[in-house]
């Protein structure tokens, strides 16, 4: 089993090195760096399982690092270690999505527990992603919902091209459902029982994309400690979906073209050629013809990929589909959440139909997922929708929480969101939540580093309170 990878970020060299040595003795693979910017770069290259960062650092501090990572690697747990152990700092850290907040000097036994929990969380998120991908594959063909002229045209093209092995390019704005269309083509093709492998070319660093696509042999480059199959081999017999295909580096495009034409590839560092049978579907929101003019994309590769072209219209150009999409997503999320929602009220539907949907179907889907969570009655009302749909750009009046969150976490998220909305006014927050200020303080204290430890201790011992103790100094 591969060792879990931990990235340590601390500007104090001595601390960093002894910390790294300690974690290596505990059986982890450790990388280390001295500041937040370098940490971001290392995280993108090495994909650590957990990041342990100091809070106060020059240039990019621990919380700024967490904010930046939330965009790039939202699934990587970050543990913040700090000498500044105030409740407010801990609350802010939790609000920013920090996995745990530990005060200096560190308690090694506690760190061991935290690392175990962080790795469990990472593993759980990974398993959830795999499950979601499988579920997505099953209902992909059903996901093409709509009866507007642009959608009908797209569906006809999907049905026509699916049985063949022709390469397809899907164009359209972000969120229009390019991957859904690709999955639908795969599901309707004779390859439906073989793998559908999706790769987002823009999410992979240029240095890794060749290895991601074609795989590598052990020792092919520094860090290649075992053989790894690339996406192309994984998709053998099935379909390879390349999102943001325009991001493939120009120097790699020739090799890419050769694999498509010859249906053979050689892994990085490999000596022999491997035969592959893969259908390639690409997607882009760039104008590839323009990329050819500026010599960022090979013309011969473009013609090889673009045997068949499907363009997806933005949602605002097919508003007729909004009601049926709304019902589709309500049914889906009600089923998944065990609810019995019937639909939306006329006023809510008007708001949904009038909105511009700059994020297209993805934005509509997310909006309805949230509305289903918030809605406690049979019909989704206007107040279950974000304020921007009504033309207001203000802060949302709702808290979005994922399914399956433990009650304890739900309470914490809700309290922190209320505190934020009421501008950190603890008296008003306590009043709004219907609890005493004392209870609020106790809860906030529990969310801080010390408090979290107490919470775990509470869980173990279930002791409600301790008697007054006598101290003699």
């Amino acid at each position, binding site marked *: 089993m591969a060792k879990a990878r931990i990235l340590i970020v601390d500007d104090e060299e001595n601390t960093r090195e*002894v910390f790294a040595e300690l974690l290596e*003795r505990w059986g982890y693979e450790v990388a280390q760096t001295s500041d937040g910017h370098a940490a971001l770069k290392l995280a993108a290259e090495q994909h650590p399982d957990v990041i342990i960062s100091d809070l106060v650092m020059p240039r990019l501090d621990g919380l700024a690092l967490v904010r930046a990572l939330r965009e790039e690697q939202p699934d990587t747990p970050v543990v913040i270690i700090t000498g500044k152990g*105030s409740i407010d700092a801990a609350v802010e850290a939790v609000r920013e999505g920090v996995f745990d907040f530990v005060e200096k000097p560190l308690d*090694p036994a506690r760190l061991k527990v935290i690392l175990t929990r962080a790795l469990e969380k990472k593993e759980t998120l990974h398993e959830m992603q795999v499950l979601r991908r499988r579920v997505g594959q099953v209902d992909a063909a059903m996901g093409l919902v709509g009866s507007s002229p642009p959608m009908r045209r797209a569906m006809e093209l999907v049905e026509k091209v699916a049985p063949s092995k022709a390469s397809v390019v899907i164009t359209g704005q972000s969120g229009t459902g390019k991957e859904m269309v690709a999955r639908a083509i795969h599901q309707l093709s004779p390859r439906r029982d073989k793998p559908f492998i999706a790769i987002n070319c823009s999410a992979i660093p240029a240095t890794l994309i060749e290895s991601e696509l074609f795989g590598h042999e052990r020792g092919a480059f520094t860090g290649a400690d075992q053989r790894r199959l690339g996406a192309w081999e994984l998709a053998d017999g099935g379909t390879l979906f390349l999102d943001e295909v325009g991001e493939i580096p120009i120097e790699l495009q020739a090799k890419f073209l050769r694999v498509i034409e010859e249906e053979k590839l050689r892994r990085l560092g490999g000596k022999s050629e491997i035969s592959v049978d893969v259908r390639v579907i690409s997607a882009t929101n760039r104008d590839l013809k323009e990329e050819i003019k500026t010599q960022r994309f090979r013309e011969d590769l473009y013609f090889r990929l673009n045997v068949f072209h499907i363009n997806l219209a933005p949602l605002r150009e097919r508003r007729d589909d909004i009601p049926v999409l709304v019902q589709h997503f309500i049914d889906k999320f009600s089923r998944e959440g065990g609810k019995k929602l019937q639909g939306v009220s006329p006023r809510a539907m008007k708001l949904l139909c009038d909105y511009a949907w700059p994020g297209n179907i993805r934005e509509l889907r997310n909006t309805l997922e949230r509305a289903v969570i918030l809605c406690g009655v049979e019909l989704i009302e206007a107040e279950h929708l974000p304020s921007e749909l009504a033309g207001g750009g203000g802060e949302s009046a709702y808290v979005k929480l994922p399914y399956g969150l433990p009650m304890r976490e739900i309470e914490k998220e809700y309290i922190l969101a209320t505190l934020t909305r009421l501008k950190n006014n603890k008296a008003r927050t306590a009043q709004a939540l219907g609890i005493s200020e004392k209870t609020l303080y106790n809860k906030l204290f529990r969310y801080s580093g010390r408090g979290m430890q107490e919470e775990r201790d509470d869980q173990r011992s279930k002791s409600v309170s*301790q008697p*007054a*103790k006598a101290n003699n100094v």
Partner: protein
Amino acid sequence: MGHPIPRIPQTSDDPSRRAADRARLLERVAAGLAHEGKNPLHNMVLHLQLMSDKLPGREPRIEKHLAALRDGIARVDALLRAFGEFASPEHLPPDLAAAAARALHLFAHEARRANVQFHSRLPEALMVRSESVALGDLVAHALVASIEFAHDGGQVNLSAEPRGPDAVLELRSQGGNAHREQALPYLDAARSLAPEAACELSIETPAAGGARLSLSFQQLR
């Protein structure tokens, strides 16, 4: 050219002004010290753990040394924590018991120097309707005054408890040889802080000696 920085009118020999300037600087130094002191402690803990991991099946006397080092680190850490909280209490909850425990920790050396024994009985927490900075300062001044009243061999009994809707901290000084003069500035400071801390302060100094300070607050429910 930037804008000139306005100068607050003052006389250079105004002693209260100079004291305030110095107190402001000291406050910042104290907060920084409490924070920066944590880094070397953290470093020591890591080295100690590594040393401990590298010496499996070690002799009991080595184990004793390691335990002593851990204990020393924990004591310095507790002191730094109390110091940091005392220096920057604005983010702390208004907890009367915690403020008293903090003051006990920070002025333990005063008590030892004055040959005064502390006996304390504090609950885990006792939230009061007060302002954290004023609360911390008030409790510290009351404690130092109590030490002065029990100077040279006396004792201070300190207890905090809820009484109906209120929470009361009581400090009783007895025995010893009271240093009344030295106690007065701290009592004055406590009196002036009491309204700001929403505290009803009562001070009794019986002719027979000793003192009883009672700090009463409304409990936070």
